[in-house]
């Protein structure tokens, strides 16, 4: 019951929110609805914590892995919602571009994400992931500017094509399952498939085909190079909180789907094939992204490429495998979402102050926006994988797993890429921070809601870098246990 409630509440809220034409009323309602949803998510998480697995009907199911990603989703959604109330002070009106549409679509987006996480069926999972694209496309094009429209179009087309591939992969898996004797009604049920996976070995060729299509398909959504091209466009031209949602939640959600598929594939035909593909795509993403970060001219595009880089790292962690690699990957996905949210929040302030996100037009940020600059530096340091922030721990874990697994070439590649990525990130950050501001603009005051949202991210990052609470560790272990 709680699962249904958690899932459907955002949908209901979305519909409800459309009724509010007044921006402030919409914001308040959204906050209330968000709070209620957080409570629901919390109770859901608590039940999961107690029972381990929750299942509802044929299509809803939540386990340890779900819990891990649900916590991530809940956290990011909360800060994004809080940040949005301040951020949306002056949005242009327009069709689908008013606060009520914003909140409604945000809750719709949440609904689709929840559907993806809570579905027990890989077909439903596919539908939900496709729905996330649809729900977020209008948010990406929210500003209705040239860039936003172009980005929205590319986002929609590319992700739909990618998702179509994933559908083909899902169908192939279904075929393999049916051939292996799984009843058709349950042939896409993840638990059933996991249980039956040893028997799927006979249809190995089909499983491989399925995984190839799924990794290319969901990989498009995750932002693997070379299917990543929509990602920088969409991130750059979406409103800042939506960029945060895309980068921190949507990518993780697609990664979650891939993880589920990967678990079945590797259980059935061994880890070799799927891990090789993950390593290839992850390595390619990591390398290409750090190089592309060097030539970026737009702050948000820079951050978007950094997301590709980090998703590459996550993929590498999964691909290296083993408890260490997997835990590192999950931890990294979590940490990355926090750091990226923090940084995207700062871009909102930067755009408000300088009127642009072009790096070469932003000068003297440290003097104009001291606090935002400090947060930007903290976020940059965190993103670069330096202590005392969480990404250091997760990158270190993945590196350890690489060395321990004797993936020396990969490890060297990662170390080199980290250095280049660090250089690229800080090359741009330092240029923005220093110098004389072009126009004498006054810094814009940070609202309490914005400061609070950013603080939560920062503190979480710091805590995960210094001291991982035992509860979090056990959650991580439960998540891993699901996949192994």
């Amino acid at each position: 019951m709680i699962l249904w409630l958690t899932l459907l509440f955002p949908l209901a809220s979305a519909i409800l929110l459309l009724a509010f034409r007044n921006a402030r009323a919409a914001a308040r309602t959204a906050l209330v609805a968000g709070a209620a949803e957080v409570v629901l998510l919390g109770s859901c998480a608590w039940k999961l914590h107690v029972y381990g697995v929750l299942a509802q009907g044929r299509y809803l199911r939540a386990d340890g892995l779900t819990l891990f990603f649900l916590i991530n989703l809940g956290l990011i959604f909360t800060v994004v919602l809080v940040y949005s109330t301040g951020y949306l002070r002056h949005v242009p009106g327009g069709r689908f571009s008013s606060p009520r549409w914003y909140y409604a679509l945000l809750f719709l987006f949440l609904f689709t994400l929840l559907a993806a996480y809570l579905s027990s069926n890989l077909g439903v999972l596919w539908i939900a992931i496709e729905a996330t694209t649809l729900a977020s496309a209008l948010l990406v094009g929210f500003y209705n500017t040239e860039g936003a429209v172009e980005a929205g179009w590319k986002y929609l087309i590319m992700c739909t094509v990618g998702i179509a591939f994933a559908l083909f992969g899902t169908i192939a898996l279904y075929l393999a399952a049916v051939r292996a004797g799984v009843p058709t009604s349950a042939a896409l049920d993840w638990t059933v498939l996991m249980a039956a996976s040893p028997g799927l070995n006979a249809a190995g060729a089909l499983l491989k085909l399925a995984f190839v299509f799924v990794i290319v398909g969901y990989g498009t959504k995750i932002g693997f190079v070379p299917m990543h091209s929509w990602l920088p466009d969409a991130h750059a031209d979406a409103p800042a909180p939506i960029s945060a949602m895309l980068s921190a939640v949507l990518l993780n959600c697609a990664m979650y789907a891939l993880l589920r598929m990967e678990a079945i594939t590797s259980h059935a035909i061994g880890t070799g094939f799927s891990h090789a593909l993950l390593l290839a795509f992850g390595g390619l993403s990591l390398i290409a992204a750090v190089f592309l970060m060097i030539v970026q001219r737009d702050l948000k595009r820079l951050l978007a490429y950094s997301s590709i880089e980090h998703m590459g790292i996550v993929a590498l962690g999964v691909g290296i495998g083993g408890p260490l690699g997997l835990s590192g990957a999950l931890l990294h996905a979590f940490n990355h979402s926090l750091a990226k949210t923090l940084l995207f929040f700062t871009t909102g302030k930067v755009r408000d102050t300088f009127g642009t996100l072009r790096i070469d037009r932003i000068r003297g940020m440290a003097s104009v926006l001291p606090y935002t600059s400090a947060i930007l530096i903290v976020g940059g340091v965190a993103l670069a994988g330096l202590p005392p922030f969480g990404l250091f721990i997760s990158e270190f874990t993945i590196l350890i797993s690489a060395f321990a697994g004797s993936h020396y070439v990969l490890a060297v590649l990662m170390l080199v890429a980290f250095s280049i990525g660090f250089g690229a990130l800080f090359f741009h950050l330092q240029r923005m921070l220093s110098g004389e501001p072009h126009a004498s603009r006054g810094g814009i005051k940070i609202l309490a809601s914005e400061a609070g949202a950013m603080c939560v991210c920062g503190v979480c990052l710091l805590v995960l870098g210094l001291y991982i609470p035992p509860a979090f560790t056990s959650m991580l272990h439960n998540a891993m246990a699901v996949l192994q």
Partner: protein
Amino acid sequence: MGLVEFAAAKTLASSAVFLFITVLLMAAAKRTNRCIKLFAIQCAVITAQIAALAFMRHSAEAFAVAALVFLVKVIAIPYALLRISRQLKVTPAVVVSTTPVQSVFIVAGLMLLAFAVVQPYARAFALDSEMLAAATAIILTGGFLMISRKKALMQVIGLLVLENGIFLAALTTTFGMPFVIEMGIFFDLLVCVLLLGIFVFRIRETFEHVDVSRLRRLKG
């Protein structure tokens, strides 16, 4: 053997050929509207095929699916697309990167490729290789249309064709997915087309053209 059964068997046997023809014609088509109509025909063929299969296997669910396909793909989507195309008030030409002759040859090549690719699978899983090849060819052609056609609407059509191919593949290999999932997929497709329509209009409003190859502000 009754007439209906005979018709169903014939449909199943010959639909692949029809599909190949629609694909080739799409590649050669010079106008958007013709493409939309060809798409509708393609979907109609698929509908017939589902219906035939449903009849052969006596599956009520499959009939429902056939009806759904007919409603959504043969009627609703082409109608919407035609409407959009009319309302956009832009030149009807498809604006291609390749000449029609080249397109036809490329699509023919893709078909050959499709046959080559599916052959081992078809043999291994005892499937109808012709249908599977048709599905693959449609997927590939859909991709090709998306890559080579510059108009936004044509990309939508390419996407739909591609999706058709996947649907067909699912149909021939597994006799369709569970009904709920099938429904979800259709729903997604519909919303997707709706959204794409919105964006096509937005592109027209913002850029005063619908040439996606000129949407190159965001790069690097």
